[in-house]
């Protein structure tokens, strides 16, 4: 019984780590999805590309219930560990055309999806982010 008590702590720690990492991977996958979705929605937006993209990213990450700072949407809430930021910038591959860059980042250590065990932060990422860049025009 004593041995089991010792072992069960180890098992629970492992189970805890598996769940934690599973959620981290899910979050990272969501960030990737959100950035890609947002960039594309900005590309096809009939009005403001930046705000449309940030709004789309906010929608995509909503399942995590952490909100998302959207600096270009007036009145958006602040204080979220996540940031959904879209910018128009020169395309790295061709400075003569414009690109829409969307970065969705998550300061995971400040507000994790699953409470972290003491010491687990050593092996979990403190921040996660994903960036997607689409071209807003073509030059032959």
């Amino acid at each position: 019984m004593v041995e089991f008590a010792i072992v069960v702590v180890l098992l629970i720690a492992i189970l805890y780590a598996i769940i934690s990492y599973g959620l981290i991977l899910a979050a990272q996958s969501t960030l990737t999805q959100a950035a890609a979705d947002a960039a594309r929605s900005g590309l096809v937006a009939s009005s403001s590309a930046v705000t449309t993209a940030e709004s789309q990213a906010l929608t995509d990450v909503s399942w995590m219930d952490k909100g998302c700072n959207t600096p270009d949407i007036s009145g958006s809430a602040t204080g979220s560990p996540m940031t959904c930021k879209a910018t128009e910038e020169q395309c790295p591959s061709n400075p003569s055309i414009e690109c829409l860059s969307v970065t969705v980042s998550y300061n995971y250590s400040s507000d994790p999806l699953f409470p972290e065990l003491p010491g687990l932060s050593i092996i979990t990422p403190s921040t996660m982010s994903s960036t997607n860049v689409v071209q807003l025009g073509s030059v032959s």
Partner: protein
Amino acid sequence: MIGRVWSWIRRHRDEEQGAVLIFTAIAMVAVLGAGAMGVDVGFTVYGSREAQAMADTAAADIIQYINNADQETSNPGVQSYLNTKLSGVLQDNNSNAKLTVTPMLYSGGVYTVPAGGCKLPIPTPPTYPACNAVAIQATQAVPQPFWGGFNNLAGKSGSGLPPTGSGSSGCGLTTVTGCGIGCNGMSTPCFDCPVGGCTTCPTTSCYTWLPQSTFSIGTYLASFDSQQVALLNDIFGNSLGTVGVTAVGYEGLANTDVTLNQLITASGGLLTTDNVLTASYSAAQWQAIWLAAVENQEGSLNCGAAPTPLQCNAATALGPSEMTLTSSSTTNVALCALVVVNGENCSVAGADAAANQPEITYSGLDASLNVLQMLTTEAELANGSSAVNVTSGLQISGVTGTLTTDVVGPAQIATGPVGSITSPATGCPPSSGTATCAETAQVSADLSLSILGVVGTVDIPLSAADGIATLTTMTCANTVNGAITSTKITSETTTATAAVTLAGAAVATLTLSGASASAQSYTASVVPPTASTASAGTNPRQVGTDDPTPTISGPTGLYTGLLSSLLGTWTPPLNTWTPGPLSDAIGPLLQAAGVTVGGADVADLGTDCDAIEIGS
């Protein structure tokens, strides 16, 4: 041996010490194995998402170049061109994924990779480019920490014409399928469609082939007549600064087009896709933006070639050696006052009214604007009004006068596709439907004359005729470069009237009849306009008569007779560039201001048969 083992088990079978160790050892293998598998599967899922995201991004980016790929003359050339663009996608996204692109053909609801390559056969009738869709496959390598090595995950995506035309439900975020749904049931890899075609290839972004034309109504300035250098310098030098553009520089400006996208990029953050039409800047600020855009463009030209491309002289003309504009001008100008892009101008209408500002759509970013035309209209607006003493120009004994033109709006340029309305009769913008149309400036000219022996000043506040031009037809040949076959622009002008007064009292009414709606055709050989096409009158084309005869009505007598005689001499130079008694003094300024009384110049400035619009 076996007996000794059984004996040991019988002696210790009631002991529990160490039992947990055995169960733990067994369970730990399962737990750790499951955990390891979970991590590896997690990386796999993440990698798949990364691969799909890159495939989707590349599909949206590369489809923008599919029509440009027609400029290549061989299938390997097309593939190489698209591969180059794929490299750009990876660079933009700082990705190490591997991307491959397959140009495809969409026809009759079926996507195919033609046996002879995407450029062949050219469909008959040629209603779309030979190569009009792309399939993208992305491969993303992700680590497998416990399984060992790396796993290569594939994502597949595609872009093409929407299944049933623009706006179909097959496109858009809500129905993005990636490759998964469409191709799961296929035994062959995604998009590896048989020659006979498949109907299940998915599209993550759809586009519409939407040929566009850019045309103007008003005064055509961007010709190659170097004699107009003096005019340009006069316009800019009025109050905006010091301008001394040379003839070579003038030709450079006249031959250089810049897209809105390039302007945004060159603005250093001043312009964005949201405000490019509405951002209001001084002539000096616009000069800096245009200069940066032109310099960027020159970077892609071979300016060391002989003869030097004309566009290579544009930056010099915009530079400080030939043009120094002051930033003190209080009149700022926004692009929406100069050009109508896909129906958007400063007079907001339609769906954007809620936002109360004109907004550029994605396809509008590729709208090409002539540098000289835009600069001159900016300068005209910044100047606000121009006045010229016509005493010497009138060359009528005993008559002196002053002509003032007030520029309320400059000559207009429009760019966009053929809309549902193809007649200007319903106005611009039309009261219903869509149209790519432009309306001439609301320019007024006020001529004040002092006639010897007549007490008081004769004042003729002439409202110039409005003109509307509407893009009626665009016919593009489905050949290499997507060359235009012809464009038709329908235009008309309204009647211009003036209440002539003497010493403040009405004495007569002046009427210049307008031109009824008619369609002008511009073939490939005259687009864009050149000096020879301008000289031949094939582009720009004159709408209305060159020499309208003013109708004077009102009380008969000395004044009316005098006015008839006087105005008969006065009006022709306002309508033509041909030398006349007043052309040197008044004609250029009036033309610059967009005043073509009773008529208008309609110029087809350029066409883009390869233009596409990304669907949503």
